[in-house]
C-alpha cells in the first residue's frame, strides 16, 4: 500500500507529452476534486457456479503506470479462478468499479470457458482506475463484454492485460459512451500458437466527452488470428481516440491479423484521432489495417427520406447499422441485444 496526497498522485499520471497518451491527457483532465484518487474501490462480483474468488497478491507484469498505481492503492488483488475444463454457465458480472483503484486477476484454466460482463459506470466526479490481469491457459476461452457509461465529469482508466496460451480464444466487445475522459486499454500477449482473438468495440460520444480505445497486441506464436474493429460515432464537441498496434514477432508465422477503425462524425466540431500501427517481423503473414473517418452519406439520407422515413430516423438508422457491425460476431443474442438497446437509447 502506498500513501500519497491527491496532487502527488496526479503528478504521476501520464500526459500528452508521452507518446502513448498524446491524445488523452490524463493529467490535465483530473483535479483534486475528483473522488477516488487515493483510495481503493471493492468491485462487486457476481460469481457464477464453479468460479472462485479470493483476495491475494497482484501478479507482477510490466503494464504501465496506471496498473502500477492501482496495485499500489488497492490493498488486495481479487483473484478469480475458473478451474480446468469448466464451461461456466452464465456471466461473471463485475460492477461497482467507480471512485477508486481496483485490482483483479482472472485465471481461466486449461479448456475452461468464461463470459464476463463489466459495467464501468458511476456517480459524478469520480476517478476510477481498474487494473485487470487475465491469464488464459491452453485451449481456454474468455468472452469479455464491457459497457462504460460515465457522467460527463468523471475520469476513468481501465486497463486489461491478457496473456493467452496456445489455442485459447478471446472475444472482446466494448461499448463506451465516454466521460470527461475514458481510456479503455487492452493489451493482449499471444504467447502460444493458434490463438484466436476478436477485439471489437464502439464509442458513441456527445457533449464534451472523450473516449480512448487503445489496443496493443503482441503475437509471438504461429497461426494466430486477430480481428479488431472499432467503430466511433462522435457529435457536438466530443473526441474519439483509437490507437491500435499489432506487433508480430519473428516466430509468429501464418498470423492473420486485421485491424479497422471507422468513425462517423455527426457534426464538424468533433475530433477523431486514430493511429493504427503494424510492426511485423515474421515474413509469412497476412496483416492489414484500415482507418476511415467520414460523415453520413447525404445521398443515402435523401433516398431514405424519399421513401418517407423522417430525417432524424434516417440518420439514426444508418448510424445504428454502422455501429452494430462491431457486434455482428457476438454470438450471445441477449448480450448483443442489450448492447444494441444501449446504442438505440443513445441515438433516440
Amino acid at each position, binding site marked *: 500500500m502506498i500513501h500519497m496526497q491527491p496532487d502527488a498522485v496526479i503528478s504521476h499520471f501520464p500526459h500528452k507529452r508521452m507518446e502513448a497518451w498524446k491524445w488523452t491527457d490524463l493529467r490535465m483532465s483530473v483535479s483534486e476534486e475528483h473522488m477516488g484518487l487515493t483510495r481503493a474501490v471493492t468491485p462487486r462480483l457476481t460469481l457464477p457456479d464453479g468460479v472462485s474468488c479470493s483476495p491475494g497478491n497482484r501478479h507482477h507484469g510490466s503494464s504501465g503506470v496506471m496498473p502500477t498505481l492501482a496495485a499500489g492503492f488497492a490493498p488486495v488483488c481479487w483473484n478469480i479462478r475458473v478451474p480446468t475444463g469448466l464451461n461456466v454457465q452464465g456471466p461473471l458480472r463485475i460492477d461497482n468499479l467507480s471512485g477508486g483503484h481496483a485490482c483483479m486477476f482472472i485465471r481461466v484454466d486449461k479448456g475452461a470457458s468464461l463470459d464476463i460482463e463489466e459495467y464501468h459506470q458511476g456517480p459524478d466526479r469520480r476517478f476510477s482506475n481498474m487494473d485487470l490481469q487475465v491469464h488464459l491457459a491452453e485451449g481456454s476461452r474468455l468472452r469479455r463484454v464491457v459497457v462504460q457509461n460515465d457522467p460527463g465529469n468523471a475520469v476513468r482508466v481501465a486497463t486489461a492485460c491478457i496473456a493467452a496460451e496456445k489455442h485459447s480464444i478471446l472475444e472482446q466487445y466494448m461499448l463506451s459512451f465516454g466521460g470527461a475522459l475514458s481510456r479503455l486499454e487492452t493489451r493482449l500477449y499471444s504467447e502460444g500458437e493458434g490463438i484466436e482473438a476478436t477485439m471489437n468495440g464502439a464509442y458513441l460520444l456527445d457533449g464534451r466527452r472523450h473516449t480512448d480505445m487503445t489496443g496493443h497486441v503482441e503475437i509471438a506464436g504461429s497461426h494466430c488470428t486477430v480481428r479488431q474493429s472499432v467503430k466511433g460515432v462522435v457529435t457536438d464537441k466530443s473526441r474519439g481516440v483509437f490507437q491500435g498496434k499489432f506487433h508480430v514477432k519473428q516466430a509468429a508465422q501464418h498470423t492473420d491479423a486485421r485491424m479497422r477503425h471507422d468513425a462517423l462524425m455527426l457534426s464538424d466540431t468533433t475530433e477523431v484521432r486514430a493511429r493504427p500501427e503494424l510492426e511485423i517481423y515474421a515474413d509469412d503473414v497476412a496483416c492489414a489495417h484500415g482507418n476511415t473517418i467520414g460523415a453520413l452519406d447525404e445521398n443515402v439520407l435523401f433516398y*431514405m*427520406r424519399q421513401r*418517407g*422515413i423522417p430525417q432524424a430516423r434516417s440518420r439514426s*438508422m444508418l448510424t*445504428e447499422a454502422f455501429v452494430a457491425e462491431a457486434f455482428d460476431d457476438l454470438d450471445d443474442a441477449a448480450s448483443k441485444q442489450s448492447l444494441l438497446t444501449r446504442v438505440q437509447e443513445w441515438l433516440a
Partner: protein
Amino acid sequence: MQAFPKLSEAWEFGINLGKHDETLQSKDEALMLKINNLSVVVNNGEATILSGFNLDVPAGEVHAIMGPNGAGKSTLSYVLTGRDGYDVTEGSVTYRDENLLDMEPEERAVAGLFLSFQYPLEIPGVPTLTFLRTALNAQLRARGQEELSAPDFMKRARSVAKELRIKPDMLKRPLNVGFSGGEKKRMEIFQMLLLEPAFIVMDETDSGLDIDALRVVADGVNALRSPERGMLIITHYQRLLDYIVPNKVHVLAGGKIAVSGDADFARTLEADGYDTYAA
C-alpha cells in the same frame, strides 16, 4: 390494365386504399401535378438546367419523358422529390393543390410521391425488409393511418416479392448492397408496389433490365395504373412504352418540354432522333 392477377390480392392486406382515395380525389380532380414556368439551377447557381419548364399531369394519366443525355430529366425527378442542391429560382410546382416545393422530401413521400431512382442507393447494414417496414409505417403513421404489424407486413412483402420474382433471400440482405444493376431496379419496383404511391416518377427504370424483368416490372406498374394515380416515366427506349402505353410523350430538351405527342410519337422519335427538336 394488363394481367397481374395475383398481385391485386396482395393489395387487400393492411393498406387502406379507400382512405387514400379520399385524399386523392381532393379539390382539383383533373390536375394532379402542375409544373409552371420552372427554372432550376444546380451547383449554387452555376448551371441552369431547367428554364421555362411547363408540364401538367392529370390524375389517371401516364406521361413519358424522353430526351437526350444531360437534358435534365433526372434533375426534374430530384426537384419533384426535394433533393438538396437543386434550387428553384422561378416558377411553381403544385401537387394536388399543394405547393410541393414547400414540403420536405419525407412529406412529399407521405403525400404519395415516389421516385424510382435512376441509380438506386445502397443502404449498408439495414436489411431490405427492415428498411421497407420502417418506410411504410412511417408513411402510414404520418397519414394518421394504422401501422402494419410485422406478420401482416411480411405476408404482403412475400406476396409482392413472388410476383416480381425476387428471391426471399434477397429481402434479408441490406438494401441494394451488392445487388446487380437489374436487381436494384427490380427492388425499386418492389418498393413501389409495397408503398402504393399516388404519384410515381420512374427514372430509367428500364435501363439495365433484361427482357423478362422488363415484362415483370411493366406488369407491376400497369397493375398500379388507376384513375387516381399519376405517373411520369423517364425513359430512352420505346420498348418500355410498348408495355406501359403512355397517354402522352414529351421531349425534354433545352431546359423545357420541346415537343409533345401521343403514344405513337415515341416511335417517330426513335426513328428520327432528337436533333429535330433539341435545337
